[in-house]
């Protein structure tokens, strides 16, 4: 079976700065993988490369056996879906229409669905609406949702595309502890059966969520292991946790 996502020697330069210096990463099918690291380690840049928003200067990205290196975002959307670090929804559209659009992007949608209303798309959008707990706000413009609701919708949009691999960029950023707990519970519940790659700044947040954790420091993955082992890892403590404590 192919890995859900493989990164081989990813290099990204911005001018003279090497942001990513040969990143290797292996995410197995169905795994919940977290990517942690201090600010400026290159986590979001790595997501931009995987989702096609930017091109790597070197290295290969393989999703589910398909080489997607340097493909435009709309050409990788069937393989993977992402959420953004800053909330990214379609503000002028109603909540349900946000999800309908995402469902239209799914591999199973037909061309005719873009031109005529379709019961199947409606049903899929509605199921996602219920799953993310926004059923009572279906007709509200997305811009009017609260921050936590918008984040939930952001997640819902990514999930509704039916992509097997979900990339989440700091899904609990800017939330208080209770909101973050709820958001993580929602992620856990809605991503059953999919592969998840989560960027998180705060290791505690993903400790319960992730099966494995990779630590990105200064453009390199310095360790990949189970959460408990990562906590105990001396290099990680020095480079990341220790730095955060001091």
């Amino acid at each position, binding site marked *: 079976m192919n890995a859900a996502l493989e990164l081989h020697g990813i290099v990204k330069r911005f001018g003279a700065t090497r942001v990513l210096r040969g990143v290797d990463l292996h995410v197995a099918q169905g795994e919940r993988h977290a990517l942690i690291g201090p600010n400026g380690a290159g986590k979001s840049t790595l997501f931009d490369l995987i*989702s096609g*928003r930017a091109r790597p200067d070197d290295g290969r990205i393989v999703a589910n056996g398909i080489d997607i290196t340097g493909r*435009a*975002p*709309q050409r990788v*959307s*069937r393989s993977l*879906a*992402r959420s*953004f670090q800053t909330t*990214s*929804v*379609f*503000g*002028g*559209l109603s909540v349900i*229409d*946000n999800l*309908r*659009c*995402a469902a*239209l*992007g*799914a591999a199973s949608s037909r061309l005719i*669905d*873009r*031109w*005529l*209303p*379709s019961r199947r*798309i409606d049903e899929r959008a509605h199921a996602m609406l219920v799953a993310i707990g926004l059923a009572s706000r279906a007709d509200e413009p997305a811009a009017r949702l609260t921050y936590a609701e918008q984040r939930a919708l952001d997640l819902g*949009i*990514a999930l*509704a*595309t039916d992509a097997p691999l979900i990339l989440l960029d700091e899904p609990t950023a800017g939330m208080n502890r209770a909101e973050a707990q709820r958001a993580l519970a929602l992620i856990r519940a809605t991503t059953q059966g999919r592969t998840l790659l989560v960027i998180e700044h705060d290791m505690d947040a993903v400790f319960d969520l992730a099966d494995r954790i990779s630590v990105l420091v200064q453009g390199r993955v310095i360790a990949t292991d189970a959460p408990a082992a990562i906590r105990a890892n001396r290099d990680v403590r020095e480079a990341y946790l220790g730095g955060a404590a001091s």
Partner: protein
Amino acid sequence: MPRFLALIAALALPPLFSDQSWLLAYFAQTATLIVFALSYNLLLGETGLLSFGHAVYSGLGAFAAAHAFNRFGVPLPLLPLIGGFVAMLAAIVFGAISTQRASTSFAMITLGIGELVAACVWLVPGWFGGEGGVTIDRASGPPLFAWTFGPSREAYVLIACWCVASALAMFAFSRTPMCRLANAVRDNPARAASIGFAPRRVRFTMLVVSAFFAGIAGVLALINVELVSSESLGLARSTSVLVATVIGGAGTFFGPVIGAVLLTFFSVAVASVSAAWPMYLGLFFMWVVIAAPQGVAGLLRRDMRTLCIGAFSAMVWSAAVVVSVEALYAGRNDARAWLIAVPCALLGLWLARSTRTAR
């Protein structure tokens, strides 16, 4: 639906009560601009694309239709379809370039294309008819039953029917998932790409659909005045549809209809009593952009109290503006004019302040 019935009723009334050709021409002009503004709003409102070259599509459609009518004797009632399809072809060519970009770049590209096509009128006088344009004699085509479309009433009925049909078609289109995808691209192109929709392709599709209806509008104008000339595809025509759409409100489907009615009112009715009409239109346009960015359609959704005060203050302001503009225009520095204008303006200011605190 009640709004559509109102539109149909408003278009059906004039030929029932009057056979005055100027009145029918005025209503035909309104109907034409309604179709044109609705098609423009598929770009501006739905897709968030500001175009300065929309008249290119209506104009080219009209030129092609005029030639099809004169040379091949295409029946007049079918002529708008010809215009629509030719405009679509033009949009496929020009849109491939312009829809690569959004926002300011898109606006600049459309401006360039507009100037380019306008220049062609003088470069290819054979096809565009040069200064005189291309004329048709709408009665010369094959008659439909007893109708030759020569009399203005028959031509008007044809234009009104096409106006209603186009408005209904665009309304139906505005309810399609494709139009929601256009909204998604308008609101957040990066996100739209990440769920699988290339913003460029969505913009392109919307432009082609919009151009089809613009082409229809161009032919309706041709049927009304029996002439298509360089003005039909020039920048002035492109800006007038932009002004109509913004005045009416790009945020709602019926906003552009209101805008089209108001713009035709300014350019025909106000123009017939005052040569200073562009000044009134300009001031009104600025006022809408600053004070009512949702357009007149957005204003109508406010509560009754605000509406009444707003209407009163609009009257006061209009009085102040009209008196001072007309005095200036006549070149007289009449003290009496200022005696009316200044108190009106002060009253208007006071009303504006009180509505702001009331809100």
